[in-house]
């Protein structure tokens, strides 16, 4: 029987997952999301970053019926249930693509590169895809 302990492990590390790929052209985006959802079970300090083409993963109104793939943009809404609440989007990447926070499927913290850089520098582990 799987029970979970609210107190968590003694050593908590900071893990940052950096998404830099568009959603459907390659498998990286979906794989990274699965890794984050599994990692969420370990009660670590998790943050997820979307930058470069990765910001396209969060674009609203995705409809994949025509390409026969799963619309996993809906799954980002479950991140909160999984306890993943630090979600950062780089402002420069949004600007370059003509997007703003209102175009995205979930509420995120939009950060300028200079501020995101500070948070990135504080991590114990950074995994980029």
């Amino acid at each position, binding site marked *: 029987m799987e029970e979970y302990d609210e107190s968590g492990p003694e050593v908590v590390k900071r893990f940052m997952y950096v998404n830099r790929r*568009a959603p459907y052209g390659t498998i990286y985006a979906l794989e990274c999301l699965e890794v984050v959802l599994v990692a969420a079970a370990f009660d670590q300090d998790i943050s997820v970053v979307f930058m470069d*083409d990765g910001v396209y993963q969060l*674009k609203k109104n995705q409809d*994949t019926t025509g390409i026969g793939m799963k619309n996993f943009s809906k799954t980002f809404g479950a991140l909160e249930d999984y306890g993943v609440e630090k979600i950062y989007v780089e402002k420069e990447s949004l600007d370059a693509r*003509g997007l703003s926070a209102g175009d995205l499927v979930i509420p995120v913290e939009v950060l300028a590169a200079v501020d995101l850089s500070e948070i990135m520098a504080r991590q114990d582990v950074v995994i980029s895809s």
Partner: protein
Amino acid sequence: MSPMLHLINKSPFERTALDSCLRLAKPGSSILLIEDGVYAALGKAAHAGKIAGRMEDFSFYVLGPDVAARGLSDAALIEGIAVVDYAGFVDLVAEHHVTQSWL
């Protein structure tokens, strides 16, 4: 020499496929954007001028199902780009003697 059909399936932010294609394709050719290549067709994105500035040289097309999958609306596309479905994709391939994929 009949015009070629050029296929671009990579994002213009990540790869140079579109730049190289625009540099090397003969005016009069057709360029079809598919998969992550459709991001090049967005009117508001930083590189929109690359395509908008070449509308007289080439016929631009974009694959509709790939546009919809990525949450982009036809209205957000650069004016003058034609949206085709899979049948239209096949027609374009049939109409051109040579198809070049810029992988």
